[in-house]
């Protein structure tokens, strides 16, 4: 029992098939793995490998074709729409590649949004949101609208929004995909530090091997399947051995294929 509880996310034989007219495309093909609580897990793979689809499946945004995904021991694909929404309010946070901030709202209001859905009182949520913005270094820009901010700032608002309700799991889909390398590092540091401070589980999708280094564990997705799982936590074991294939092969691939955003 104790072993099972330690796994906060369990993916069992997950399968996703898209139908494009008469053609069937298997985006995720019979994938199984588990993620421990407090782990920083990276779904790493090239464009079109199905990693983003897998993340969406784990977050319950997309429907599974087959198999099951358990989060905190609950099958999220068996939940009602309302139940899933409530579950997201309380347990999940999201960081998107394109930030997905609401342009009509100020930074502060954007961060408040998940708390609004949770029926939190104005005063309380304003305080939490302000704290959060300070933590991501935007204490001075709370009244600005997303359109008046740089990409890095917008993503920091996005991170604040993802963490404001203190969720146990934060899903990040290419969080630095639209940022330059320096800002990317800053953003990754923020995510990692925040998650560590509250023992939160991070599931991040990336195609960038450098970003994958931030993770405790890298799940390498290739062609809709788990290619290999690399544990980086026990660095003293086979640190260099594990990293070498990762550093070489995908880099070659990403050089050959034009980077395509999912």
């Amino acid at each position, binding site marked *: 029992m104790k072993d099972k509880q330690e796994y906060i996310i369990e993916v069992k034989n997950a399968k996703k098939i898209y139908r494009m007219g008469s053609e069937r495309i298997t985006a995720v093909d019979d994938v199984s793995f588990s993620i421990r609580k407090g782990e920083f897990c990276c779904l790493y793979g090239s464009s079109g490998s199905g990693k983003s689809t897998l993340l969406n499946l784990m977050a319950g945004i997309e429907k599974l074709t087959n198999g099951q995904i358990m989060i905190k021991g609950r099958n999220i694909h068996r939940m009602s729409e309302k139940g899933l929404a409530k579950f997201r*309010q309380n347990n999940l946070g*999201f960081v998107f590649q394109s930030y997905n901030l*609401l342009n009509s709202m100020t930074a502060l209001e954007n961060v408040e949004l998940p708390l609004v*859905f*949770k029926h939190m009182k104005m005063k309380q949520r304003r305080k939490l949101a302000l704290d959060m913005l300070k933590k991501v270094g935007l204490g001075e820009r709370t009244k600005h609208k997303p359109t008046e901010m740089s990409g890095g700032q917008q993503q920091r608002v996005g991170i604040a929004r993802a963490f404001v309700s203190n969720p146990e799991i934060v899903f990040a889909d290419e969080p630095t995909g639209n940022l330059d390398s320096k800002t990317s590092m800053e953003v990754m540091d923020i995510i990692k530090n925040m998650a560590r401070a509250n023992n939160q589980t991070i599931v991040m999708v990336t195609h960038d091997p450098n970003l994958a280094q931030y993770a405790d564990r890298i799940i390498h997705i290739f062609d809709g399947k788990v290619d290999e799982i690399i544990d980086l936590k026990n660095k003293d074991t086979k640190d260099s051995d594990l990293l070498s294939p990762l550093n070489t092969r995908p880099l070659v691939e990403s050089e050959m294929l034009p980077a395509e955003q999912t």
Partner: protein
Amino acid sequence: MRISDRLRMGIRSLFRRKVRTLLTVLGVVIGCLFIIITISIGHGMDKSFETQVKEYGSLTTITVDTYGVIYDEDGNWAGSKEQKLDKNLLEQIKAIDHVRAVTPVVRAEGELIFGRYRSGISISAMDKEAFKEFEFPDLSFGQYPTDEDNSTILFGFYQPWEFYDPNSRMWTPVQVDLEKDKIAFKFYSWQYERNERKREFSIPLNNIAKMEETKSEFDYNTYMDLEYFQKIYLQYCNTLTLEDRKKAIKVLDEYQQIRLNVDNIDNVEEVQDKIRELGFQSESLLQYLQPTIDASKTLQLIFFFLGAVSMFVSAISIANTMVMSIYERTKEIGVMKVLGCVVKDIRLLFLFEAGMIGFLGGTIGVGLGYLASFLINKYGEPIFGALMGGGVAMGDMQGATFSIIPIYLPFLALGISICVGLLSGYFPARRATKISAIEAMRTEN
């Protein structure tokens, strides 16, 4: 989401598209305005009919007179004919459908006597049940005739006329207190020849009742129970010469008028047609008012139609606005869904926006409705006066109200506006909830 948050978000998104919101609201305003004008004019007309009815008698009353006036097809006077009204006819009229009450009316001329002063009077005698059936006014003192005591003489508010001394040269009227002073009544002596051996007939009036003011025909007439009248009339006849006595008694067999009440205003015309079939001309107030009523109904129908059409158009424009708004905010809806917004909240958010458009339109519409009502009452006389006067109440047209807004009307109009908003927002809102989060987040904007 808390209700306050829904309000805030809804108002924010309405404000984001000010011009579009304003134009949509305008549609509702026009619809709401028409509804208010329609109903307020309807009430104004009802009110004006009510006062006319008070002044000229009940709209359900039909009278058949000895001299029936004949009108041609266009309602012009074409002469009159003498018609014999007797018991036979009374029974025939009673048998007509929808006739609720019938009474014969016998009129007699005479004078009131107070010492040496005299006052001419015309008494209308009718069945005592009629005083109830034809909605006679309340009495300031005295009692309507009953089975036990039917000797009451009922004076209208302005009755009797003033008392003068016929032998004096001065013709100064004297004040008579009907409750205290001793007054007697006698029939005019010039009508029939008196039997010289008998004393002139006169009867003291001990049972007097007086009506309150009604501004109607009652004010200028004096009434009596027909049975009692016949009794004193026969007593009077006994004082006449043998020859004239027969003539005088014969008068009782004929009535000066038959008055009947119809159960419903809609049946007045039908009953009048039936009386015509019996060979008698009848009159009713309704036949004068009918063209007015028809015109006002047509006018109201036109306004109602305009109101309904503009409400329908504004419903379409609200629906259109909401659909556009949802297209624009597809991505937002997707993000909100992923962040844990319950479907119900999304639906309520859009419903609130649509309802808000209805509410704003309704509120402004009600405001303009009051303004329009004011303007109609102030400057609308040339148009509405012609429609509503109907040639009957011409004297009182000055300062008349054509548009009356009853208390419930602003609420009704507002309610309709909000309902139109909610109804036309319902399907777009439902559509918004059906948007798949993943599809929504992929859309660009």
